[in-house]
């Protein structure tokens, strides 16, 4: 029983990371209908930069903030290339972001090498219902939940958030009322980049990061986001937390090698179940 509480908290921490990557995907997909395959690479980039800044002597907080901002800037850059040319179809943009993800590998190896990196987070452990839990996992959850709250408020209450949602539901009508759809798309890429960067910065102290850990991040993030049809950040949060807990429990009870497979099977099952319920013609129109 005490083991279970530990797994639960650890799983929530890991799942919060997935949820952040997934929410980045959701924010970009909602507005532009593009699935940003470079989302995992953005997290890795932000994490690596933060590690470098910390070892250069910058204090905690400043380095992390700069890392997240770098994630936003890189996200904006991805957006400029992926949707900057008028008339690029979302399918083509997916392949462009795939190419940019590969390009990010080149940059990461060039700057940071191909060895795993990490940096210290919040140290220490606490007793929770008899289980020892690293404090950093609590920090991840404590940061993620308010971020999602702000995200929900942003989309529902602010003019900018409403404009972003308008682009998602009807780009033509949005343009008619004077919303610059392309600028909103780029803004969503920057916001998505910041969320991806936040995921990388938060999870690196408990999980080392290498240049190619983006595949695991993007697959888990996509699995979290696809539960809500890639459009609902709230569902992405629930999905990410569920996925994190499921993986930790599976790992804790002896299936440690099968952690990624849990996410993959969930991903396939959810997508196929969704496709069976939606006729193809309707899907094409959506």
């Amino acid at each position, binding site marked *: 029983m005490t083991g279970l509480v530990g797994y639960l908290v650890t799983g929530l921490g890991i799942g919060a990371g997935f949820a952040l990557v997934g929410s980045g995907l959701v924010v970009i997909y909602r507005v532009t209908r593009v*699935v940003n395959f470079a989302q995992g690479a953005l997290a890795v980039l932000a994490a690596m930069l933060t590690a470098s800044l910390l070892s250069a002597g910058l204090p905690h907080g400043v380095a992390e903030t700069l890392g997240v901002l770098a994630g936003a800037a890189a996200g904006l850059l991805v957006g400029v*290339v992926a949707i900057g*040319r008028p008339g*690029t179809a*979302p*399918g*083509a943009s*997916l*392949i*462009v972001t*795939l*190419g*940019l*993800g*590969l*390009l*990010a*590998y*080149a940059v990461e*190896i*060039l700057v940071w*090498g*191909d060895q795993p990196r990490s940096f210290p987070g919040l140290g220490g452990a606490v007793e929770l219902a008899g289980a020892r839990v690293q404090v950093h996992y609590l920090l991840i959850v404590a940061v993620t939940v308010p971020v999602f709250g702000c995200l929900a408020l942003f989309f529902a209450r602010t003019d900018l958030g409403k404009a972003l949602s308008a682009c998602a539901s009807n780009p033509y009508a949005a343009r008619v009322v004077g919303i610059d759809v392309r600028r909103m798309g780029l803004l969503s890429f920057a916001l998505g980049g910041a969320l991806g960067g936040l995921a990388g910065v938060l999870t690196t102290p408990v999980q080392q990061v290498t240049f190619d850990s983006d*595949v695991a991040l993007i*697959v888990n993030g*996509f699995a979290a986001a*696809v539960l809500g049809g890639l459009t609902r950040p709230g569902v992405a949060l629930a999905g990410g937390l569920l996925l994190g807990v499921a993986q930790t429990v599976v790992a804790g009870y002896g299936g440690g*090698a*099968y952690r*990624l*497979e849990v996410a*993959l*099977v969930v*991903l*396939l099952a959810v*997508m*196929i179940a969704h*496709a*069976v319920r939606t006729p*193809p*013609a309707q*899907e*094409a129109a959506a």
Partner: protein
Amino acid sequence: MRAAWIAAGLLALAVPVLLPERHLAVYVLLALTATVTVGVSMLMGYAGQVSLGQASFYAIGAYAAGLLATHGLPPLLGLLAAPLVAAAAALLVGAPLLRLRGHHLAFATLAVQLILLGLLSRGEWAGGAIGLQGIPRFSAGGVQLRDDLGYAYLALAVLAVVMLVYRNVVVSRVGRALRAAATGEAAAAACGVPVGRYRLAVFALSAAFAGLAGGVYAFYLGYLSPGSFPVLLSIEFVVMAAVGGLGTVAGPLVGAGVITVLVQALTLLGTQPGMPGYAPAVLSYAVYGLVLVVAVLYLPRGIVPSVHSALRIPRGKS
């Protein structure tokens, strides 16, 4: 057009003899990569689907041939089984998966490959993460292929067979139906095209191409490991197909050729004395990434169709 094909064929036959022995490996791998790319190009061009897991069928073919051969069966049987096993796997996986479209299918195929790699690296029967060793050399009718020259011609023969099949699919009634389905699925279905079944058939056929190439790969290297079939390999196939031109017969060849030569040239540059150890990796990632982005944005139809229309329509008129 026919003359160009004959010239290309003669060139492909002549090159292995003229090439120095140490460059033959590149030739063999290029022919095998082109074989897989033909399948990817067909899948993307005719079924309108992006597969980020084509290397899994390459791996399935290779492991099928390798396992049969290490268990004492004749290598020829292994090579023939490779495409069949890969196609059977594709039918099994494709039946539920091909309900998905676009980015969903892309992620699903990626997931399938990651699951396969996980299974292979933990499966004792497949040699685990260390890999499958001791695959005998390829032999048929008492003749054993020992040197790279033999494998160069075997790979070339496989590529020729696959191209022939591909060309016949393209010009057939099925090919036309698939093209119709790729442009307008509902319209094609309304005209009586069994879209779902055809799409599954193309998926299986592209997997068979990859499996056949994988079989040759197994006998050529004599050693297989999960690390030989990374996700990046699947992405490379997509890059080559997209760069060459989707849905054209010559496209996969041109795409695979251009990218392979480019990467080889840069690897040569990257391994020059004085270059840092990570240079080859950085250069090849950069090439794949840049070429993919530039091709999709500025040459969306690929090299071959663009050259075609440039030759037919004089400049200034278009």
